[in-house]
Every structure is written in C-alpha cells, then in structure tokens.
C-alpha cells in the first residue's frame, strides 16, 4: 500500500511539474502558455483545463487593460497638449487672469500675473489678498477685507473697477515702477453657491497717463490761452471801432496783438511738446548747432523784459566750444526756458550769467541767476510736470509749470543731462551738459 502511495505521489509530482514553466512564465506576466491536457482523462485533467481557462481569461483581461491604458495615455496626452495650449493662450493674452476657489485661495494664474506679483510657487495655494497685493493711489496697501476679490466673493456678484469707475488699484513692482490696474471679477457659481472667482487684470497705466495728459493739456490751454485771446479780441475791437485812435496808438495796439499771438503760439508749442513727450512721439533731428547763435537769438527775444527789469545778462563762452549735437528747436526751447525763468524770477537790477565751456566730448552750459531761488523742500520736484515752486507761484501766478519738464525731456533726448543748485532768495544755477557734435559725427552731423 505504501509503495502504491509512493508511486502515486511521484506520478502526481511528475504531472504537476509540467505546469512549472507555465507558472514561471505567468509569474513574469506571460500568460501565453498552453497547458497540455493528455487525451486520456485522469484526476488532474479538470485541474489542467481549469488552469488553461484561467490563463486564457487573464490574457484576455490583460489585453483589454492594455488597450484601455493606451486609450488613457492617448487621452492624457491630448489633455496635456490642450492644457499647454490653453496656458500658452492665457499667457499670451495681454491681461492677467487669476482663478481663486471659494476660500479665496489662488488656483491658477497666467504669466501676466506672475510678472506683476511673483513666481507661481509664491502665489498658488495662497490667499489672494496676500499675494495679489494691491495699493491705492497714495501707495497704501489694500487690506484683505477691502481687497476687490474678497468683495466680489462676499457679494457674489460681478464687479469691475475700470477707469470709468476711478480704477483705484495700483501695484508697485520691485523695480519701484507703479502700474495702474483695471480689475474685473466674475464669481464662479457652483450649484447656486459662489465656488470661487475669475479675476481679470488689465494694465491701464499708459492709458490713464494719456488720459491725464489730455485733460491737463485741455485745462492748461483753456486757462492760459484765455488772457491773450481776450487781449487780441479787445485790441482788434478797439482798432475797428475807435476812430479817434492816434497813429502811435494804432501801432501799439497792433504790437499788442502781435505779442499776444506770439504768446499763444509759444504756449501751444509747449503743449505740443508735452503731449509728444508724454505720448513718446517727440521726434528730434539732431545736427551740429552753434551755441552762441542759438543763445543770442533767445536773448534778443527776451530783450524787452531784460530792459524793463533792468537786468544784466553776461555771456561767457569759451572760444574752444565745439558745436553742439542737438535738434536746433530743442536747444532753442532749452535756452528759452532757462533764461526766461532767470528773467522772470530775478528781482529788478540783478545779473544773469551764461557760461559755456568744452569738457571732453561735451559742452557744459551754466545759467546763473540771482533770483528768488527754489525752496529746498520743493527742489526734488522741479522737473515734474505742472510743478510750480510756491514762491514762483506768488511771483508769477500764470506760469504753466511745463518749462522745466519740457527742458529736461529735451536735454535727455539729446543725450545730455541737467542739474541745478539753488538757494532760496539767493538764486539758482542750472547746469546743462549736451554732447558736442564731434562725438556724434558718425551719425551724420552736418
């Protein structure tokens, strides 16, 4: 009996060992094996058939899985491509896009936003008010509670803060530049509840600057053209209707009309310069210009005021001074502004001196006066547009506040520099450096 059992065990082991390579293959993921089922049925036939069925089923399922996996892979590739495409589109639009969830945490920003507010890693997942940091016009931070996104989410309605509504939001860049933003916020509704918001930011800095320039120009024009326009109107009327006017009076009246007209042309020219400076369309035609000729022209124009105020103008120009490389009109405007300021703000009988000397490849021009000077506290602002020193305002209330702004822009465009020192009640010295034409010969100096 035990010999039979031994034989049976051996036989069983022998049969089962036929399956070893099948299992070994299956263990490494190969289910292609065919189990050989002997023609003559025995105790293991059913088991062998069963194994074969299991193998076949697994093979079939693996095949199906592989197909699905490929489909999933293909789908995720499509999704990745789409995502990249959408992000590229969102990055390329000129507006900023921020998506926040219902707890006001940022879930998406485009490149425009990262350029203004910092890297993705700094922004994503954070509270919107702490990363999309906004300021008011004066540079004070907008608090979380007053953040426009928080407001829109709280009220659950679309809000926009554009120029027409005052566009009160600004962002200060690390470089110190300040950009003005227009902001549109649309809540994202999920099942009737606010599930977040889409925030679109527009940089309206240029637009609002242009807007401001326009209204400033209109305001200056309407204020300052009025007096000469009235003068022309009254004098023309007098010439037309007063038959008793003497020849000398007629001559004087014509001169007044001429002067008022000149005044208006000068003012309109200044306004045009300002608008070109602000809109970036200032177009200079630099060439070699003789400094003394330009200076004499300006002095000649100011002669009536110089004489009326009993001022002395001293000119000291180094004979070695080379021609300047600058747009002749720009040089005229620079000298006209500096000298007319010196005349206007000097007490009667004082001296104005103009010095010009060659320093390497530049001309250094100094305009010195013994006038009222610029109050120390106001000195940092004098090249700003529409700025007028308090003492200058008292002395000549109708100045435009454009002269030094234009002067600086003209000097800068010529590749030069302007600076000054001033002591209130003692006078002001302006220093202007303008490249000589020698340095620019290659650019076609005449």
């Amino acid at each position, binding site marked *: 009996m035990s010999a039979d059992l031994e034989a049976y065990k051996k036989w069983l082991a022998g049969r089962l060992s036929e399956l070893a390579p099948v299992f070994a293959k299956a263990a490494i993921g190969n289910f292609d094996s065919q189990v050989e089922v002997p023609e003559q049925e025995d105790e293991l036939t059913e088991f062998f058939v069963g194994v074969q069925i299991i193998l076949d089923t697994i093979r079939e399922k693996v095949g199906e899985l592989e197909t699905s996996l490929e489909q999933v892979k293909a789908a995720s590739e499509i999704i990745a491509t789409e995502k990249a495409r959408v992000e590229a589109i969102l990055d390329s639009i000129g507006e900023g896009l921020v998506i926040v969830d219902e707890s006001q945490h940022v879930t998406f920003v485009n490149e425009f936003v990262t350029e203004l507010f910092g890297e993705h890693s700094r922004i994503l997942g954070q509270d919107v008010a702490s990363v999309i940091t906004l300021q008011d016009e004066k540079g004070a931070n907008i608090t979380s509670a007053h953040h426009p996104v928080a407001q829109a989410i709280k009220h659950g309605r679309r809000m926009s803060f554009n120029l027409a509504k005052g566009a009160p939001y600004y962002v200060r860049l690390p470089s110190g530049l300040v950009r003005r933003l227009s902001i549109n916020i649309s809540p994202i509704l999920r099942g009737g509840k606010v599930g977040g918001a889409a925030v679109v930011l527009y940089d309206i800095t240029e637009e609002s600057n242009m807007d401001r320039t326009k209204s400033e120009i209109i305001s200056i024009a*309407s204020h300052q053209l009025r007096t000469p326009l009235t003068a022309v109107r009254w004098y023309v009327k007098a010439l037309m209707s007063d038959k008793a006017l003497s020849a000398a009076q007629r001559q004087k009246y014509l001169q007044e009309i001429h002067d008022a007209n000149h005044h208006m042309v000068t003012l309109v020219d200044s306004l045009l310069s300002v608008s070109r400076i602000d809109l970036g369309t200032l177009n200079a035609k630099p060439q070699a210009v003789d400094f003394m000729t330009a200076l004499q022209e300006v002095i000649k124009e100011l002669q009536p005021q110089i004489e009326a105020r009993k001022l002395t103008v001293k000119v000291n120009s180094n004979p070695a001074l080379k021609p300047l490389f600058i747009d002749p009109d720009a040089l005229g405007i620079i000298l006209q502004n500096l000298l007319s300021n010196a005349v206007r703000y000097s007490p009667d009988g004082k001296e104005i001196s103009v010095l010009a000397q060659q320093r390497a490849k530049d001309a250094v021009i100094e305009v010195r006066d013994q006038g009222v000077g610029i109050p120390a506290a106001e000195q940092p602002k004098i090249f700003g547009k529409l700025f007028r020193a308090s003492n200058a305002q008292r002395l000549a*209330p109708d100045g435009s506040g454009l002269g030094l702004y234009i002067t600086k822009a003209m000097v800068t465009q010529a590749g030069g520099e302007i600076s000054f020192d001033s002591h209130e009640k003692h006078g002001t010295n302006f220093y202007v450096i303008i490249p000589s034409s020698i340095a620019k010969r290659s650019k076609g100096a005449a």
Partner: protein
Amino acid sequence: MSDNGAANGGKKLLIVEDERALSDLLRDKFESEGFEVATAGDGMAGLEKALSWQPDVMLLDIVMPKMDGLTMLHKLREDSKGKNIQVILLTNLSDTQKVYEAMASGVFDYLVKSNWEIDDLVKEVKAKVSGAK
C-alpha cells in the same frame, strides 16, 4: 502804477490787473471816456492804491501776483476806507467757481473777460458810477 488826470473832471477808476496788455487798453479806453484812471499790477499795490486814492470804482482781476484779487477784496472790505468802493471783478471763465464762493461774502458784480466786449464793460462801469454818486 501811475495816475492820469482826465479833462472831464470825471470819476476815478482803479484798474488792478497784472496783464499789462489788458490794463493798457482799459486805461486808454476809460481815459478817452473821461475817467481819471490809475492802474496797479498786483493785489498788494492795488489795495494800497485803493485805500489811499479812493477810486469811485475798481476793476479787479482775480489771478494776480503777490495777492490775488479775492484776498484783496476781502481786505478792502475790512477797512473802513475801502468798504464803499464799487468793485467789478474781471475774471476768466475758469475762475468762476472761486467767484461764486466769494459772492457769498461780499456784494459785487463780475464780468467774464473773454465773454464781454470792451464797450459793454465801459457801459457797465458808467452805470455803476452814475448810480453811486
């Protein structure tokens, strides 16, 4: 600042205006109408002249150096010698807001320079002085 006697034994007119072109023409015009005319080019000189010279009527610009016209008018009214001088404010359209504000404090007429012909201004001044004395 200077005084010109007028042959007409006329009324005294003070012009306080910093824009010389305008004040010159006003002077010519009113002198030819028989007024005795004096001018001042800023509010400070104008106040001084008004108090010492006692004009019948004064044409007063608003935007002027040293002291603006409204401040000057205020000081003039505070002074017993300036209380009764008739004043016509000469303004630019852009100053009208200031004028409205000032009208609450003192009674005077005002003319917007660029809207008026000089002949109308002469008529207005004549009407003022004939009613005054």
